[in-house]
């Protein structure tokens, strides 16, 4: 009879253990990588390094490439106007051709933001280790996968070896129980979590999102949530596999078929933390208390509810924070005490790997339907996450709703989330954005970003200022 019973395992540990190739005496582990997503910005130097060392990819078949950061979201028939951006995309094309890596090029209907197309094509599967030279790789954890962003040296390392040296993360369970209120979305959960634990709260951790409110989210919502794990400092965010996961994956072009499907599902159904699993930290939130969120500063943790006000730096909890808040208010051109709902916006951006999937566009369209973009809003744009999302939205007539309301309907890409292409804020412009980072200069030098959900962005576009979408 066993006197001691081992505690149950976390999802993180199950995923980790399934990918261990070798462990050094100090615990440093060589971890096998199942899927490598590649884009044009963080890969050229990796391919160059590979070539200089006369190496070739160990498994070109495990990689998939797509240009997304630099691509224009307007008419693409003339190619990319900026010669520097064009060279970067052409370099990706050449590297993929040379090494036999499948690439969805700019004119492919499957082209889109790397974190949208992976799941959409079934290239991201439960139980996989997924990496990409992009911090928002955490998105793919929504499928019960271990997914994290890496630097270019590690991109080269994965190409050459199909492995990475890692040490196990600590684990944190973010448990959200209850029912979200009407008009409150996964984006609001993500911002509320970051507001709670801070942008460094997840450093060193892999986050697992659990609880009834998470189970009730669609896969799109789970992707939004895991996408923002990195904004809480965690390289990886994840959600256990359930029927919603399996239903989403089934029938996707690269998903397993036939016997392999049954075999895969049998394993995927084990990919959840055991009931008695122990986490290094547990954070609990009540879903019913989460309100629509709007960031007011230059870090995602600088967040308030739509009914709240811009805070006063005098109320900050430390000297360092007081300094940061003061600087943020100055950069954002905001006065302490201003109601969030009185802040006017100049531009509206609906898109990015956080919020550009079909469900996001449906939510935004349902708010914009039959209304007009306010006269003080210079530009309101919708950038679908992929060519297939765009096609689906058009089949549902969402494009007409947006265009009739005065939004611009664009081609897929990262666009104004990071403004590497022509889409950007001018100095001093204020934007309601569904993206993930409100850092200084992120959307263009001097630009002022307020992070919100797609519904809140659409509502701000029509009102000309932030407004409580629940009252719309």
């Amino acid at each position, binding site marked *: 009879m066993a006197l001691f019973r081992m505690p149950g395992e976390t999802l993180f540990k199950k995923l980790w253990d399934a990918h261990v190739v070798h462990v*050094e005496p100090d615990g440093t582990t060589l971890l096998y990588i199942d899927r490598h997503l590649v884009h044009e910005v963080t890969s050229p130097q990796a391919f160059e390094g590979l070539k200089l060392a006369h190496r070739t990819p160990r498994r070109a078949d495990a990689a998939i490439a797509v240009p997304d950061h630099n691509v224009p979201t307007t008419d693409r028939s003339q190619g990319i106007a900026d010669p520097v951006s064009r060279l*970067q995309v052409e370099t990706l094309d050449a590297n993929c051709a040379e090494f036999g890596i499948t690439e969805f090029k700019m004119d492919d209907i499957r082209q889109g933001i790397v974190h949208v197309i992976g799941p959409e094509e079934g290239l991201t599967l439960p139980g996989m280790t997924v990496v990409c030279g992009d911090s928002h790789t955490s998105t793919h954890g929504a499928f019960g996968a271990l997914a994290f962003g890496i630097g270019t040296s590690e991109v080269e390392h994965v190409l050459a070896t199909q492995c990475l040296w890692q*040490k196990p993360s600590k684990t944190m369970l973010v448990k959200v129980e209850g029912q979200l209120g009407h008009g409150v979305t996964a984006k609001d959960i993500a911002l509320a979590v970051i507001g709670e634990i801070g942008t460094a709260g997840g450093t060193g951790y892999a986050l697992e999102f659990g609880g009834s409110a998470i189970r009730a989210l669609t896969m799109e919502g789970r992707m939004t949530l895991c996408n923002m794990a990195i904004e809480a400092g965690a390289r990886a965010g994840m959600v256990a596999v359930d029927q919603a996961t399996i239903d989403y994956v089934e029938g996707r072009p690269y998903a397993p078929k036939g016997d392999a499907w049954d075999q895969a599902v049998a394993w995927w159904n084990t990919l959840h933390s055991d009931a008695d699993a122990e986490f290094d930290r547990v954070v609990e939130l009540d879903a019913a208390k989460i309100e629509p969120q709007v960031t007011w500063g230059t870090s995602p943790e600088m967040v308030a509810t739509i009914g709240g006000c811009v805070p006063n730096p005098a109320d900050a909890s430390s000297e360092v924070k007081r300094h940061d808040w003061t600087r943020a208010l100055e950069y954002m051109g905001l006065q302490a005490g201003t109601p969030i709902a009185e802040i006017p916006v100049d531009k509206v951006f609906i898109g990015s790997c956080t919020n550009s999937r079909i469900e996001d566009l449906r939510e935004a369209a349902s708010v914009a339907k039959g209304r007009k973009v306010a006269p003080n809003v210079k530009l309101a744009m919708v950038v679908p996450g992929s060519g297939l999302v765009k096609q689906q939205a058009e089949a549902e007539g969402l494009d007409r709703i947006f265009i009739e309301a005065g939004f611009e309907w664009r081609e897929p890409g990262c666009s104004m989330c990071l403004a590497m292409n022509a889409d950007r804020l001018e100095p001093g412009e204020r934007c309601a954005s569904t993206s993930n980072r409100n850092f200084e200069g992120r959307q263009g030098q001097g630009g002022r970003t307020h992070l919100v959900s797609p519904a809140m962005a659409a509502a701000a576009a029509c009102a000309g200022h932030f407004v409580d979408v629940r009252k719309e």
Partner: protein
Amino acid sequence: MRKFSVLDGLVVPLDRANVDTDAIIPKQFLKSIKRAGFGPNLFDEWRYLDHGEPGKSNHDRPLNPDFVLNQPRYQGASVLLTRDNFGCGSSREHAPWALEDYGVLAIIAPSFADIFYNNCFKNGILPIVLDAAVVDRLFRECEANEGYALTVDLDKQTVTTPTGESIRFDVDAGRKHRLLNGLDDIGLTLLQADKIKAYEERRKQEAPWLFSGSQQ
């Protein structure tokens, strides 16, 4: 990769928390397909008063006199002293490339973002975590004493102040070994090629769908 052993370096204090990699090297410079040459655009939006673009000469651009890196007393600094969560945000390795190209070889902060911390070690930069109270004191000492320099000894895992005070820091043994010897990670990993192959063979049996590939 460059070896790191002992660094005796002038310290520049960047008194901000949550310095993100967008601030360290703005996006327009990420269009480069090269690994070198990012130093002149390190902290571009804080360092210059105009807008920088790749290919634009930086020599005659107006400098922001208020930005700490532009102050004469900090010219030639190789140790960056900063606050919590340095390097958060984007995974861009262009951030450590820009720091290294500028001449920063050690960074001292109470905490770092994970991906940035990892990227530093791949580029011969040593990120050092010290207690927030100690960092606070180093800030005060640095600001009060022109020419303030610290000696960073990776092998001994110490930071030594001008008064001879020695402060110990932690570093992962494997990372330390690689940085001390300037070792190439890929070369080390390929020594495990047999184990990688054995893993793949086993995994092909257990989970064949993982090997059906992205080529349809």
